[in-house]
């Protein structure tokens, strides 16, 4: 068990995951959750601090506080994405983003797509130094990635548990997806409400997928990667139908992937593309040109 938790990974993988996670922090505060910045301007009567904010006596958000947090997060996350001072900058980003999340979730609505991402932010500072081209195996890095993987899978598995707790077994055959589509369905998703049996089938499929997600840890590499792509496909289909993206969860799923190989793959693709352009500069392909 200990060996499994600390299974070494190349340091390069840790470095790439760090870059991905910290650049996502930048994208999140500027693009995905800009409404958090607006919370500073919301009248304080609307503030309903979650437990952790009350325990730590965190201040009520103001425009000045949230604005300062925004710029500090941008600066520290961009610096952390380079891989320098991973412990110092990593903890700074974790603390800043945790406060950003407290500001986000303390106004009556808590999102459930952040847990694995927050765990990634909490463990990456402990993963030790790592450069992007470094192939030396690291157990500390392996532990950090394993914790992120466990958190990502726990999010799926415990979501099924929550459905059984709050909705009961009848959740499977209820109209929850119909409600979601009526509330926020896309042009692609809304027509599905005319096929209720398909949505009931999808609900059964979702719970089965969530309950079986821990299998990713036992199926081995051959089936493990297809399972990760299945996770991504699930989120893509949810986004395409009801515009809920779960992007932070998807970033955390990066802990399952050999990220250090991505640059080589991209270079290979670019090389193949440029060779094809040289052989066939006009782009007609080999199937013959236009009719003369």
């Amino acid at each position, binding site marked *: 068990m200990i060996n499994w938790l600390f299974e070494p990974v190349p340091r390069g993988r840790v470095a790439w995951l760090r870059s991905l996670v910290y650049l996502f922090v930048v994208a999140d505060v500027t693009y995905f959750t800009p409404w958090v910045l607006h919370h500073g301007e*919301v009248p304080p009567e609307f503030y309903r601090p979650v*437990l952790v904010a009350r325990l730590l006596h965190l201040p009520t958000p103001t425009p000045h506080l949230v604005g300062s947090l925004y710029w500090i997060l941008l600066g520290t996350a961009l610096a952390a994405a380079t891989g320098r001072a991973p412990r110092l900058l990593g903890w700074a980003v974790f603390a800043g983003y945790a406060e950003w999340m407290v500001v986000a979730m303390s106004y009556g609505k808590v999102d459930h797509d952040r847990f694995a991402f927050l765990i990634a932010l909490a463990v990456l500072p402990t993963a030790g130094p790592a450069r992007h081209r470094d192939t030396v195996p690291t157990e500390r890095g392996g532990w950090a990635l394993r914790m992120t993987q466990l958190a990502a899978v726990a999010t799926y598995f415990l979501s099924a548990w*929550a459905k059984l707790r709050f909705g009961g077994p009848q959740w499977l055959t209820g109209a*929850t997806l119909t409600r979601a589509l009526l509330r926020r369905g896309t042009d692609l998703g809304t027509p599905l409400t005319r096929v209720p049996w398909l949505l009931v089938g999808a609900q059964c499929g979702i719970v089965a997928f969530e309950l079986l997600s821990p299998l990713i840890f036992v199926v081995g590499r051959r089936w493990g990667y297809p399972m990760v792509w299945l996770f991504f496909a699930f989120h893509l289909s949810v986004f395409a139908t009801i515009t809920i993206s779960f992007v932070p969860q998807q970033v955390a799923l990066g802990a399952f992937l050999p990220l250090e190989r991505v640059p080589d793959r991209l270079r290979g693709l670019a090389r193949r593309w440029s060779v094809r352009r040289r052989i066939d500069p006009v782009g007609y392909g080999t199937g013959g040109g236009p009719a003369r």
Partner: protein
Amino acid sequence: MLLIAGTVVGTDDDFPFGPFKMYSTTDRLDAPVADSRVEAVDTTGRRFVLRDSDTGIRRAEIEGQFDRFAADPALLGVIARAYRRHRSQAPPLTEITVIIRWHELVHGRPTGRYRDQTTVVWHA
């Protein structure tokens, strides 16, 4: 352990260790499903649906604090103040209404019929 405890007995208040309960409640296939919106009237008499970007408050956050608004509709004035901060050039609001649209379902299929229920009203 915290996460499992949060899932078994916790609430959203325990963030980030609370239960992952988004869309975890059950809607019956033959009962109407609810879809809420917030409408506003400004000093020119214009009635419009308030968007999240008009106030900095998300629709789900208003739904999450609905019990407070129902108990004390004067609290909806908070939304009017948030609107003034966000849209300082726009005419102020004189009325805010939280409306729930109940979509009728038969055997899980929306019939296209619905009923709008005015739940909470605030006047300036």
